[in-house]
C-alpha cells in the first residue's frame, strides 16, 4: 500500500505542469475558442514528442505502457490550463478501444500512428434516444456481400471533427437478422455520405453530431471479430471518466487558488473579503471538496483494471461526486468574484464552463449515483 508518487510520476507531473504553464495562457485559450479546429496542431505535435500520446499504449505497439495513474497526472495538469487538444477522444477512448477490441493487424496499423501523432480518433457512441444508457444503440450495421452498411445518428461526439478515423458503434444485423451484438466500426472521416456537423463545445474544444445514412464500409472496418463490444465500451468510458475526473481536479484547484487570491485582495467595507467568516468557511468548504475530489479521482484511476462491477462503481462514484463538487466549487468561485465573475473579462467563467461540461459528459451526477446504486445491490428487486 503506497500512494506516494514514484520519481518518474513526479517528473511527469512537473513536466506536464511546466508545459501547460508555458504554452497555455489566457491569450492562447481565447485564440483557440475562436479557432475552427479548437486546438493547436503544433501543441499536438509537442504532445507526441513528449511521449504523452504514447503513454497508455502497450510497448509492442509503439507505446510506453503507462497506467491510469499517469494519465490522471497528465489530465490534472491539462485541467489547470484548460487544454483543448483531443486527448480523451484519441488516446484515452480511441487507442484503448483499438487495443482492446482490434485485431493484431488493426492494432499494428493504428496504435503506432496515434503514438507518433499522425492519426487522431473519436468515439461515436451516444444517441439522442439513449440519453446516458450505454447499452441503447439504434444505429444498425447491416452485413452486405462487400462489407457493411451503417445507418443511424450519433450525437455529442468528442472531437469528431478532427478525427482521421471515427469509431462508430452499431447493432450488428446479418443474414439471420439482429445479432444482439454491438460492433465497433472504424469509419474514415473521408467516407462519402458521412455527415459531420461540428459545434463549439461548452468549456473549450469542439464536438459534433454525425449522420450515417447508408454508409458503406469494407469488411475490415469492423474492429476485432464482432464479439459484443458493449463491455469494452463500458470499460473505455469508465477509464475516460477517471481521466476526466483528474482533469476536473486540476480545474477546481485553479478556481480555488484564483478565488482565494481575489478574496485576499478585494476590499469591501474597509477590509479584505477573506476577513469575513462566511467567506472563510465557504473557501474552506471549497478546499475540502477539491481534496475529496482528488482522493476519489485517484481511487477511480487505481481501479480501472479491477473486475467490471468494482471498476464501474469506482468510476461512476467518482464521476458523480466530482460532478457535484465541480458545480459547487465552480458556482462559488463565480459568487465570490461578484459581478466580475459573470463576465468574459475574467477566466473564472471559462474554467466554470469546463466543469459544467465535465459534469454532463457521459452522464451527470444523478445518472452516475443511480448506476452506482444499481450495481451495488446484492439483490435485484422483483
Amino acid at each position: 500500500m503506497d500512494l506516494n508518487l514514484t520519481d518518474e510520476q513526479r517528473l511527469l507531473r512537473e513536466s506536464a505542469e511546466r508545459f501547460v504553464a508555458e504554452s497555455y495562457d489566457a491569450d492562447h485559450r481565447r485564440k483557440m475558442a475562436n479557432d475552427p479546429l479548437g486546438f493547436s496542431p503544433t501543441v499536438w505535435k509537442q504532445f507526441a514528442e513528449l511521449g504523452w500520446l504514447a503513454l497508455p499504449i502497450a510497448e509492442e505497439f509503439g507505446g510506453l505502457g503507462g497506467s491510469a495513474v499517469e494519465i490522471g497526472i497528465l489530465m490534472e495538469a491539462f485541467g489547470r490550463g484548460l487544454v483543448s487538444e483531443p486527448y480523451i477522444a484519441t488516446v484515452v477512448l480511441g487507442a484503448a478501444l483499438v487495443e482492446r477490441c482490434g485485431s493484431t493487424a488493426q492494432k499494428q496499423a493504428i496504435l503506432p500512428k496515434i503514438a507518433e501523432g499522425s492519426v487522431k480518433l473519436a468515439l461515436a457512441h451516444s444517441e439522442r434516444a439513449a440519453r446516458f444508457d450505454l447499452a441503447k444503440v439504434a444505429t444498425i450495421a447491416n452485413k452486405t456481400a462487400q462489407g457493411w452498411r451503417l445507418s443511424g445518428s450519433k450525437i455529442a461526439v468528442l472531437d469528431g471533427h478532427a478525427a482521421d478515423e471515427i469509431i462508430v458503434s452499431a447493432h450488428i444485423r446479418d443474414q439471420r437478422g439482429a445479432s444482439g451484438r454491438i460492433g465497433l466500426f472504424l469509419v474514415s472521416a473521408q467516407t462519402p455520405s458521412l455527415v459531420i456537423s461540428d459545434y463549439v463545445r461548452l468549456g473549450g474544444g469542439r464536438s459534433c453530431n454525425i449522420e450515417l445514412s447508408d454508409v458503406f464500409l469494407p469488411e475490415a472496418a469492423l474492429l476485432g471479430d464482432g464479439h459484443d463490444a458493449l463491455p469494452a465500451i463500458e470499460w473505455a468510458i469508465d477509464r475516460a471518466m477517471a481521466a476526466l475526473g483528474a482533469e476536473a481536479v486540476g480545474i477546481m484547484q485553479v478556481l480555488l487558488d484564483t478565488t482565494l487570491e481575489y478574496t485576499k485582495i478585494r476590499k469591501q467595507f474597509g477590509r479584505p473579503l477573506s476577513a469575513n467568516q462566511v467567506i472563510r468557511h465557504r473557501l474552506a468548504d471549497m478546499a475540502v471538496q477539491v481534496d475529496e475530489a482528488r482522493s476519489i479521482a485517484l481511487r477511480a484511476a487505481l481501479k480501472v483494471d479491477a473486475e467490471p462491477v468494482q471498476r464501474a462503481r469506482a468510476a461512476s462514484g467518482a464521476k458523480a461526486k466530482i460532478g457535484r463538487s465541480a458545480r459547487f466549487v465552480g458556482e462559488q468561485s463565480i459568487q465570490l468574484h461578484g459581478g466580475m465573475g459573470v463576465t468574459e473579462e475574467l477566466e473564472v467563467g471559462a474554467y466554470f464552463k469546463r466543469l459544467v461540461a465535465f459534469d454532463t459528459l457521459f452522464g451527470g451526477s444523478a445518472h452516475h449515483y443511480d448506476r452506482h446504486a444499481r450495481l451495488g445491490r446484492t439483490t435485484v428487486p422483483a
Partner: protein
Amino acid sequence: MDLSFNAEERAFQDEVRGFIAKNLTEEMKRATALTPSVFSDPDVGMAWQRALHARGWGAPGWPVEHGGPDWTPAQRWIFETESARAGVPNVNVMGVKMVGPVIIGFGSPEQKNFYLPRILSGEDYWCQGYSEPGSGSDLSSLKTRAVREGDDYIINGTKIWTTHAHHANRMFALVRTSDGPRQQDGISFILIDMKTPGITTRPILTIGGDHEVNQVFFDDVRVPVANRVGEEGKGWTYGKYLLEFERGSGIASAKLREGLKAIAELAESDLTGRAIDSPDIATRISEVEVDIDALEMTELRVLSALQTGQNPGAVSSILKLRNSEIRQAVTRLGVDVIGHDALAVEPMRPLYQLNHEPAVPEEMLTVVPEYLNGRAYTIFGGTSEIQRDIIAKMMLGI
C-alpha cells in the same frame, strides 16, 4: 502507486484476524453493536483492552519503550480496519490515545512509570476535564482554578461533557493556575484522582437516552503539585497536542463503512419493506458510500505521506470534519430506512441486557438513538465551524 498490501502486510492482516477471531466473543460483539453511544461501557471496553494488552497491542501509537508494538502506519491501518470490520468494542480513548501520548511527551519519569502501565493494563480508567459550561469552542477561556498551597493545588470550578466520568478513577484536566496576558497563558495540565474529596459528578442524559457524559464539580479539591504534567502555565500547548490526536487519529473510514453496511442491509431486508426500492434511499446510500470511499483514500494518502516521513499538514481537520459529517449522514439515513419503527423509543439501558421484548427488531434498536446522540459528532473535539476556521487559517492562509 498501489492500493494492495505486500506479503508482510497480508501476513499481519491474517495475524490480526486470527487474534480477533480468538478473542472477540459473541457477547462482546453483540454488546458493541447494541451500544448507541460513542464508547463501550467499561466492562465491555476494558475486557477488550486487556486482551489487546496481553497480546502486546494495548497501545498502537506509543513508542516501543513504553509498550507500543512498533507498527508501521500501514499496520495501524490494517489493525484499525480489521477491528472495525469485526465489530470489536469501542475502547474509551481517553487513556491510551489521549492522556498517554501527553504523559509520554511531557510527563516526568515518575509519572511515566506510574501511569503508563496502568493505562495499558486497563487498571486506570480516564476521563477528560476540558470543556466548561462557559467554555466550549473557546476552550482557553476556561475558569476552573488551581491555587497553589504548599505542595498542593486547591481546585475549584466545574467541567462539563465529561465522557465516562461516572466510571473513571482518574481525570486529566486543564485548569487555570495564573492569569497571563493571553487567555491561553496560565493554563496547566493536571492529573486528578477522582476519589479525592470535593469532587461530585452529575449525570447528563443525551437526547438518544444514554448516560455517557457528565458534569463534574470541584469544591476545594486538593491535588499534589507532583500531579502536574510538564511546566506550570504550559498546559495549553499540551492540551492542543492532545486535540491533534483526537482529530487526527485518522482511521475512521472502516467504521463508517460498517455502519453504512448495517443500514444498507436493513434497507434490503423485508423488515423495512425493502426501503432500498425507493430510488431516493438507494441513491443516498450510494452518495454516502462514495463519500466514505473518498475519506478512505484521503486517510490512505495521509498514511502514505507518514510512511515516508512527510508531514500531512492541516489535513486532520478535513478528516475530523468529513468523518463527523458522514457519520451523521449514515445515522440520518438509518432513521429514514427503518420508517415506521423510528417511532419506537426504548428507554432502558444497556440495550444488550433488556429484560423484556423490545418493540422493534433488535437490529433497529440503536438506529434512532445513534442518530440523536450523533448530532454531537460535529460539536465535540472542536465543532465543524472551528474545523473550517482551522482549514481556512492553516491550509488557505487566511
